[in-house]
C-alpha cells in the first residue's frame, strides 16, 4: 500500500502542521503508466526491467511494449494489419526474441529498416508453419529454420 510521507512544519504562529513532504506516486498501482514507461526502453533495459519483480515481469508481457521496441526505428509506421498478423503468429515478444534480437546481434551495423523487418517477419512465419506442420519428425526437437539465427557464427 502506498505510504504517505508526512512531515511537520513549523508555522509562523508556532503551530505545527502536517503536510505532505514529497508527492508520492506508487507506480505499482498504475500499470498503464508503467507500460508507458517501459515502452520507451531499449531491449536490454526492458529485459532488466522484466526481471525486477513478478509484477513487472507480468506487465512486461504486454505485447504493445514489444511492438514499440520492434518498430521504433522503422518509418513509416507499419499498418495496423500487421498487428493482427504478428499476434496470430505468436506476438511481438516472441518475434523480438526469436528474430529481431538475433538479427540485430548478428548485424549490429545495419540500420533497422523495412527490409530487415520484412525478412524477420517472413522467417517468423516460416517458424510458425514449421511448428504446425512438423508433427513428429525425428522425435526430439522439431526443426526450426530459425536455428541458424541462434547459434554463434563466424561473421566477419
Amino acid at each position, binding site marked *: 500500500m502506498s505510504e504517505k510521507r508526512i512531515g511537520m512544519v513549523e508555522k509562523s504562529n508556532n503551530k505545527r502542521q502536517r503536510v505532505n513532504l514529497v508527492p508520492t506516486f506508487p507506480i505499482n498501482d498504475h500499470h498503464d503508466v508503467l507500460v508507458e514507461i517501459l515502452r520507451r526502453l531499449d531491449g536490454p533495459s526492458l529485459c532488466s526491467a522484466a526481471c525486477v519483480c513478478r509484477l513487472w515481469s507480468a506487465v512486461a508481457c504486454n505485447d504493445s511494449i514489444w511492438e514499440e521496441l520492434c518498430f521504433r526505428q522503422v518509418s513509416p509506421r*507499419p*499498418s495496423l*494489419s*500487421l498487428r*493482427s*498478423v504478428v499476434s*496470430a*503468429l505468436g506476438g511481438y515478444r516472441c518475434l523480438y526474441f526469436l528474430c529481431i534480437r538475433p*538479427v540485430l546481434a*548478428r*548485424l549490429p551495423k545495419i540500420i533497422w529498416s523495412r*527490409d*530487415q523487418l*520484412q*525478412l524477420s*517477419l*517472413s*522467417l*517468423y*512465419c*516460416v517458424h*510458425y*508453419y*514449421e511448428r*504446425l*506442420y512438423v508433427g513428429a*519428425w*525425428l522425435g526430439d526437437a522439431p*526443426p*526450426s*529454420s530459425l*536455428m*541458424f*539465427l541462434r*547459434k*554463434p*557464427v*563466424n*561473421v*566477419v
Partner: protein
Amino acid sequence: MKRSHQETSVEEAHSMGKKLEDDNNMDEFLSALGYKVRSSDMADVAQKLEQLEVVLSNDDVLGSNALNDTVHYNPSDLSSWAETMLSELNYYPPSLDLDPTRMCNLTPFSDDNECSSTNSENNSKRIRLGPWCDSSESTRPVVMLGVDSQETGVRLVQALVACAEAVQQENLILADALVKRVGSLAASQAGAMGKVATYFAEALARRIYRIRPSSPAVDPSFEEILQMHFYESCPYLKFAHFTANQAILEAVATARGVHVIDLGINQGMQWPALMQAMALRPGGSPSFRLTGVGGPSEGDGIQQLGWKLAQLAQAIGVEFEFKGLTVESLTDLEPEMFETRPESETLVVNSVFELHPLLARPGSIEKLLATVKAVKPSIVTVVEQEANHNGVVFLERFNEALHYYSSLFDSLEDGVIIPSQDRVMSEVYLGRQILNVVAAEGTDRIERHETLDQWRKRLGSAGFDPVSLGSDAFKQASLLLALSGGGDGYRVDENDGSLMLAWQTKPLIAASAWKVSDVTAERRR
C-alpha cells in the same frame, strides 16, 4: 551404403600397416598395372628409375646399345629390372643424388609409404610430370607429418580424377585399384574435402561394380527429413524460396486473386513467407490459391500440408484455397488439370529444382514447357543449380561435379556452427545427388543440372522471355546471406537480371523469372 567401401579401406589400412613388416606384400597399384614391386622396395625402385631416366636422357647412343645387349627376365619385377639396367649402363649415381633432403621443402619425418608409392606409380606411368610431382619426387620416403592437408587434398583430387579417367577409358581394373586408394586417402583427410571425396569414391565404386540402383532406396519420408535439414542448415533453399517469392510479389502487385502452381510442393516451405507478405500488402491481401504438384510417393502428405497451410492462412487472414495434384512425372500434367480462372486470378508457375530431372527423357522438358505456356502464366519463377552436370562425356561431368560439390560441402563446413545432425543430414542429402550424377545413367540419372545460360536457351526457344529480378530481391538475398554466417563466403551476384548465389566466387544456385513471350496474346489480370 558404405560397406563395400569400408571393407576396402580397412583392407588397405591393414596392408598399409603391414607393409612395413611384410616384405612379400606387393603394392596394389602397380600390381594392377602388371608390375610387381615389393612395398618395402618402393623408394629404392623410385630412385633407380629416376637415375635411369637421367642416364637414358643424357646418353642416348650408349644407352640404346646397352639396352639391346642385355637380356631382361621378368620385366614385371621392376626392382631387379631397374637394377640390371643401371648396372649395364655402368651408372654410378653422384653422391649428390643420395642427399635425402634434396627437396628442401619436405621435412624428413614419418614413415609412410603413401608418398613413395605415389612416386613410383607416377614414375611408372609418366616420366615427366609437372611441378607437382617434382616437389614430391624424393629419394626417401618423406611426407609431411602433421597437417599438410592441402597437399593431401591435392593428392586426393588427383587420385579421384585419375580414377574417373580410368572409368572413362573403361579400364576397370585400374579404376578399382584407384578407388580403393581414394577411399583410404579420403579417410585420412579431415574436413569437407574428405567427406566429398568419400561420396565421390562411393559413387565411382558403384559405377565400376555396376551396382544398381545408383543410390540405395530410401523411404520418401526420409527424403523429406533430409530436405528439411538441408533447408535449415544452409541458405540455399531459403535463397531460392525468398527470391522466387519476391519475383512473384512484384508480378502480382495489383492482383485481386493469385493462383500459384508449384511444380514441386515438397513440404510447402516456400508459401508461408509469401502468404505473410501478401497479408501485409497495403490495400489488403489478395486471395491465394495454391496448386501443389507432387509425386506418387507423397500421397496423403500433400493433403496434410494443404491443411496446415490453410491453418496458417486463417491465422494471418489470407483467403486460401489448396489443391494437390499427384502425378508420376511432370510430363503428365495437362493444362486442364489446373482449372485456371483467368478472369479473376493472376497465374504464377513456380519451379524450384524441378526442371532438371526432366532432361533424363528426351522430349519431356519440351512437353512441360508447352503445358506451362498453355496455361498463360503472368510469371514463371525458375531456380536451378548453376552447374553443367549433364555433359555427354563422363569425365567432364565428373570434374564439374567434383568442383561443385566441393564448394557446397565447404560452405556447410565454414558457415554457422550448425548442429551436427543438421549438417550430417545435409551431407547425406547432397551425397545422394553426387551418387546420382556419377553412378547413374540413362533415365536413372535425374540430377541433370544445367547452367543458367543453358536454361536461358531452352526457355527462350520454348517461347519465354526473361524478366529481371528487381533490386528488392537482391537486397533481401544479401540480407539473408549476411544472416547466415559463413563470414564473407556467401555472395549474391546479379547476372543479366537473374540472381546467383555463390560460395567463394563459385556460383551454385541461379534464380530467374520468365514470362510468356507471345506479345499478341492478351494478358488478363
